[in-house]
């Protein structure tokens, strides 16, 4: 609390990349994430979105929570916490995981980085220290360190990202497979690169100690200048992830420990994350409840919808009849997809009505007049956007 600024406590924290990002945030479009000031967009959300799909763009993931978990019990602890088999994870690999309460309700999702035999990094969107303390109780050879403020992360996404990293001098980066990790010397320290992201496209996440953050930014932007590098914010992320069919806390699911109303939270089965639940594993949290859920089938199922017309179905109810009298679910996220040219949505629908017709009741505004329409929805099995280039190794050169 500085004397010079009596409002210091009221202000949001700044990301290590803030000086560069603030200079580029021409619209002053800020929101916040975990107490940190965070760009909604910098120049134009759709432009930034097309940078992701077209060239390359950076997204500040410093406000994301990062925990280093090390010790001989680290693997056992994580393996019990998450539904996936962590013992199968190889060093320098990343895996996407979710974790549940005893009752099988989703606490959160995130990624686990295996950095050494007994050293892991867990990343997730919301603060999880209190939860981790519960998870680690009873394990003696284990330390959990909150490295959210000391490790800076920059997500770098788009088809030309590999090329830019090569140009930046990251040797053999093109050999890095999806969910792989490589380490490079960088300045006085080192740079960790993981081939991960939240856009469904080719992309990497770059990790350095906070004091090297600006040097990383500068090096990357120098190398990326000729490839149209551009920072993007929350708005473009949300578009890209929706097309890729990725779920977002606060949209598709409510964190179980922060849910007041009974069953306003979700299970992995409801969210289509069956593939993350590994019943071959005899022990993981929520197993017995999830076993029952698997037998019985989830009450709701998260589905992808292609909706007729071009009015985004945000917040719409879904019905099984065009007269909209028999409600069967609700839309969680919706938008017009600029790349697919389709009106897409993620939605929760009662599982027992999955095979039936789905109608969305969409409200939209036109010059202050509220209108509504009923639109036919088509179930999509595959993500709206999943180009082969996202997984190709080596990625296509430019």
């Amino acid at each position, binding site marked *: 609390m500085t004397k010079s600024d009596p409002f210091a406590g009221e202000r949001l924290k700044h990301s290590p990349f803030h000086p560069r990002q603030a200079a580029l945030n021409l619209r002053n479009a800020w929101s916040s994430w975990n107490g940190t000031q965070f760009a909604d967009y910098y120049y134009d959300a759709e432009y930034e979105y097309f940078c992701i799909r077209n060239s390359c763009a950076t997204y500040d993931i410093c406000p994301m929570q990062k925990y280093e978990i090390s010790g001989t019990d680290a693997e*056992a602890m994580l393996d019990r916490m998450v539904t996936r088999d962590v013992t199968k994870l190889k060093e320098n690999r990343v895996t996407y995981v979710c974790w549940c*309460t005893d009752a099988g309700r989703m606490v959160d999702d995130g990624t686990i980085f295996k950095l050494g035999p007994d050293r892991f990094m867990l990343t997730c969107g919301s603060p999880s220290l209190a939860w981790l303390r*519960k998870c680690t*109780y*009873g394990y003696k050879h284990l330390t959990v360190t909150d490295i959210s403020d000391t490790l800076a992360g920059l997500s770098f996404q788009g088809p030309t990202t590999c090329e830019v990293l090569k140009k930046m001098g990251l040797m053999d980066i093109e050999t890095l497979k999806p969910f792989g990790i490589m380490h490079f010397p960088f300045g006085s320290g080192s740079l960790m690169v993981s081939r991960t992201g939240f856009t469904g496209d080719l992309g990497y996440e770059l990790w350095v100690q906070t004091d090297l953050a600006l040097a990383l930014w500068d090096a990357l932007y120098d190398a990326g200048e000729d490839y149209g590098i551009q920072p993007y914010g929350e708005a473009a992320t949300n578009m890209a992830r929706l097309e890729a069919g990725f779920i977002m806390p606060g949209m598709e699911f409510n964190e179980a420990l922060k849910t007041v109303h009974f069953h306003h939270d979700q299970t992995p089965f409801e969210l289509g994350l069956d593939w993350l639940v590994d*019943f071959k594993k005899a*022990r993981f949290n929520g197993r*017995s409840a999830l*076993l029952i859920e698997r037998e019985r089938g989830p009450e709701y199922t998260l589905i992808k919808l292609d909706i007729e017309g071009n009015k985004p179905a945000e917040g719409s109810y879904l019905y099984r009849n065009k007269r909209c009298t028999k409600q069967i679910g609700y839309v969680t996220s919706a938008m017009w997809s600029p790349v697919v040219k389709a009106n897409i949505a993620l939605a929760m629908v009662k599982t027992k009505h999955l095979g039936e017709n789905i109608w969305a009741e969409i409200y939209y505004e036109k010059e202050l007049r509220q209108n509504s329409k009923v639109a036919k929805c088509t179930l999509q099995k595959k993500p709206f956007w999943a180009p082969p280039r996202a997984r190709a190794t080596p990625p296509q050169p430019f």
Partner: protein
Amino acid sequence: MTDYDAIVIGAGHNGLICAAYLARSGKRVLVLEASDSVGGLAATREFHPGFRTSVAHAISQFSAKIARDLDLSTHGYTPGEAMATVGLDEAGNHVILKGSTVSGVGPDDTAEFIAFRRMMQRYSDVLKPFSLKTIPHIGKNSFSDIATFAQMGLKLRLLGKEDMQELLRIMALPARDLMDEKFDSGLLKSLLSWDGLIGSKQAPRSPNHTVLSMLYRMIGDHGGDPAIPAGGIDSLISALAEAVMAAGAEIRTSTPVERIKIDGGEKGLSATGVVLADGKIITAEKIISAADPKRTFLDLVGVDNLEIGFTNRIQRLHSDGYVAKLHLALSGLPDFTGLESPDGRMIIAPELDVIEFAYDDAKYGGLPEHPVMEIVIPTLKNASLAPDGQHVLSAHVMYVPHDLKGGWTAAARDQLCERVIDTIARYAPGIRQQILHQELLTPYDIAQSYNVTGGHWHHVEFTLFQMMMMRPTYEAAQYTTPISGLYLASAGCHPGGGLMGGPGHNAAHEILK
């Protein structure tokens, strides 16, 4: 084929009772005990050459049904006569309670006491049928579950409107308010509150938990009055051990269990045996733990095998002991001022504020300035506990923290011990000259020597939220656990501790279902 049908971990009285019932129904049963003798906190051991005693020094609610079922009388157990409870007064104006009689108080208090005892007995009778019953889950109800709840509701209604209302009111009252409503004598108030408070982290002004503890205590045969069996506490333990062996079960002492063997399969986890300290594995269909819930789950099962929420519900159980134990080897019978014979249970707690203030010291992790306690001379019932003409004094000293601020150093132990003896000497002035040896067991010591986490004699404190279908937690309150094949039979389950035998009996009943 497994080595045994059932393995019982821990040969405390609940473990023995459970083993006896299982063996009598034809199961092949093995009882494993870590220490060199059976009986747990009721085991009699030598604390000075020629002087023996047990941590538990009296019985107030051992079930007559269990004694009958297990033919304990043929194995040498004879229930004791109810003892008087004596509220010691420095000047010798003691208040003495026995059954429904009281002496040493005025006529108003006497009349109130009789009415109070009758009322409490009526309320206690409502609970009584449920002490030897499994209390069902809430919300997952079979017909018999609903029947149990309906029976409970009916019992309550049968009290009649006024009494039911009064029960619903006083149930959550602090002891002090209940006593102040009824009585004048400070000593009488202390005596009547004592059984609701002892062993807990509650003081006379603490609401919510005390009255139910009193009612539970009164479930016993003598309406909660303490008793010592004709042959001492030892005679109950040896009778139980004999009953176990007579039924064909095996007891192995000095055989600590390292952990419970848990195997995982598609359907989940199941307990399949125990691993001993030497690495040897003994297998069984069912594993029954009579160890306390924290030890059972956190140490023997291991958190790897438990869900995270469950682990934390076990971990946060209120289970730290709050009672220290003083054992004195005496050259003769102590002489308490104005007391004919110290053959009752003597309580030093002159008024409720003294109890309250002792608690105030302890709640910050300190030692009570003026300790309160209950004293029994076990040698008056069982002379063999000491050499001829010599005696043992056994005292439960209230409000002694398990985690003393600054730790349990030798100096801290001595300081407490001296304070307690000084306090006793105010009532029995010559006692210092009679002391041949003194031993003080703090809750920390009890935890270490008796393998009871926290050193709590009820394993899990008696509070409203740790009773019945919530004891020890709702997932493990029906003697089954989240791990199939693993059962609980300890004082940490309904109906709780205090040499009652209910948990061992009820667990056996569930296992044999």
